[in-house]
């Protein structure tokens, strides 16, 4: 099932949070919905799910707005940020209530808890859950109806590295089964290893949409006393280069290993070979012109934009 967003627009208090947004989400792939905090991701997802009414435009699943789906619970599962749980209700009861409303067998609650690794805490009150456990419970709720489409808003928030690895594997299996998944995040380093396609937005507008493999390559910084010779060799392969210092180049379009191999073949001495940044991150800064553009951090958890959390 496809998600289609067309000309979606929403203003809060005169400020356009989502502005003429158009994109599609294909099945059988993990699609990352990326943008800095405040870019309009959560508002877009809430419009897709019928919780926020668009000012104009449409968002459909399988050709229909959410409220007109014949059986939303079995079609699309969603785990949204700022989703609440009654603190006095147990995790299992939270899901059991949803089973009652949807008419699912109560066993689905236990199966979903098992899937997300929350079976042990199932009979404890949600008030005592950690952020990561709440994320898992929200995901379990999304999975209850065994839906075709999964929409996850910042699912890795509060998950430990083990949880994130698990999520990655889970979403991979999901997409490989031909189902649709749209997962939002402002954490690029995480998403890069998670998604096949990206939809990038900034200030409510589409910046880039397409397969991750087609993203413009990252840059590699190379130091060499024979910079000019290296430059000639590199450009012969079609890579683009830029001389930053007499003994330094930045190379676009070739990975480090290829550059090293080429230098070795031409007997060119190298002093340094450094990938400049995560591809997605570079791309993001290039496309949005946001941040300092230094791209210096490739470590875990480097976010984009320093704005406050959207959606309050």
């Amino acid at each position, binding site marked *: 099932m496809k998600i289609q967003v067309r000309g979606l627009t929403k203003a809060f208090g005169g400020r356009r949070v989502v502005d003429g947004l158009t994109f599609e989400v294909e099945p059988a792939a993990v699609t990352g919905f990326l943008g800095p905090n405040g870019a309009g991701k*959560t*508002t877009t997802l*809430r419009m897709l*799910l*019928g*919780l*926020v*009414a668009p000012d104009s435009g449409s968002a459909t699943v399988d050709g229909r707005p*959410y*409220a007109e*789906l*014949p*059986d*939303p*619970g079995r079609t699309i599962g*969603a785990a*949204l940020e*700022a*989703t*609440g*749980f*009654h*603190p*006095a*209700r*147990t995790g299992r*009861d*939270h899901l*059991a*209530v*949803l089973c*009652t*409303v*949807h*008419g699912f067998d109560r066993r689905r609650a236990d199966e979903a808890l098992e899937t997300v690794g929350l079976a042990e805490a199932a009979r404890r009150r949600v008030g005592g859950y950690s952020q990561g456990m709440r994320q898992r419970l929200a995901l379990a*709720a999304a999975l209850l109806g065994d839906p075709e489409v999964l929409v996850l808003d910042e699912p890795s928030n509060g998950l430990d590295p083990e949880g994130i690895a698990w999520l990655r594997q889970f979403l991979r299996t999901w997409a490989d089964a031909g189902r649709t998944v749209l997962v939002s995040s402002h954490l690029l380093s995480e998403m890069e290893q998670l998604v096949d396609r990206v939809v990038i937005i900034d200030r409510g507008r589409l910046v880039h949409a397409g397969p991750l493999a087609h993203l413009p390559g990252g840059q590699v910084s190379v130091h060499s006393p024979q910079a000019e010779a290296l430059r000639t060799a590199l450009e012969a392969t079609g890579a683009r280069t830029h001389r930053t210092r007499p003994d330094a180049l930045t190379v676009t379009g070739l990975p480090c290993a290829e550059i090293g191999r080429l230098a070795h073949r031409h007997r060119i001495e190298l002093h340094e070979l450094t990938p400049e940044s995560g591809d997605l991150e570079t791309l993001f800064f290039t496309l949005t012109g946001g941040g300092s553009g230094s791209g210096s951090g490739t470590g875990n958890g480097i976010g984009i934009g320093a704005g406050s959390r959207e*959606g*309050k």
Partner: protein
Amino acid sequence: MERQSLSRLVRGEFHKLFTTRLWLWLLLASLALTALYASLLIAFSDGSGTWTPPLDTAPGQQTLFAVAAGGTGTLAAVLAAIGVTGEFRHRTATVTFLATPHRGRVVTAKLLAYASVGAAFAVLGLGVVTAIALPWLSAKGIGLSLTAHGIPGTALGVLASVTLFSLIGAGLGALLRDQVATVVALLVYRFVAEPILTGVPALEAFSRYLPGPSSSALTQITLTTQEFLQPWAGGLLLTGYGLTFALLGTVWSVRRDIT
């Protein structure tokens, strides 16, 4: 492809209610309040200058059973209000409206569920009055028959009154959305504003249309000098308040963006 039936949504609301303890505390509190009212009324009934009719008369016994409405009605309304506003306070509205995108149906299910809970409160409250009155009056040598002296009519009035108060609580919650504001509004209205309004002689022509006097109309009993209407008129008024709040709430408040 089936649509969620309303009965499934009502069952969902019951399921939500009974997976937390709040209902139990409010039920116990309202039964305790009912027991207190009934006990006071019986204990002071034979003093001179008492303001209630003697308990060996039909009006006296009807008054005794009518205290169940006073004891359970307000707290049943508070429970309904908390049940509705809790969706916004705990941000469970997101999950609820994801499961049921038709918000009017969610409101309808809550009205039905909490009206039923109100009816149950009323029945249990009447049970408490009975359990206190039967032995106590018999010890005083007063005969009490639950099927005589118009008591069935009073009991029906109590049932209708508490059921409709729950409807008002749920409707007001849908309109205001804010839990504290709704509960405070209910309590301040019932215990402060209404007694003042009904005590002002100049307002007497209007104050009989207020919820409290409408409840008195249903039981045809009041412990004040307040005038009240016919039972059917009181019932219609209370239903009207509840449904009007719920309708305005659905259109203005519940339909708003859930962010």
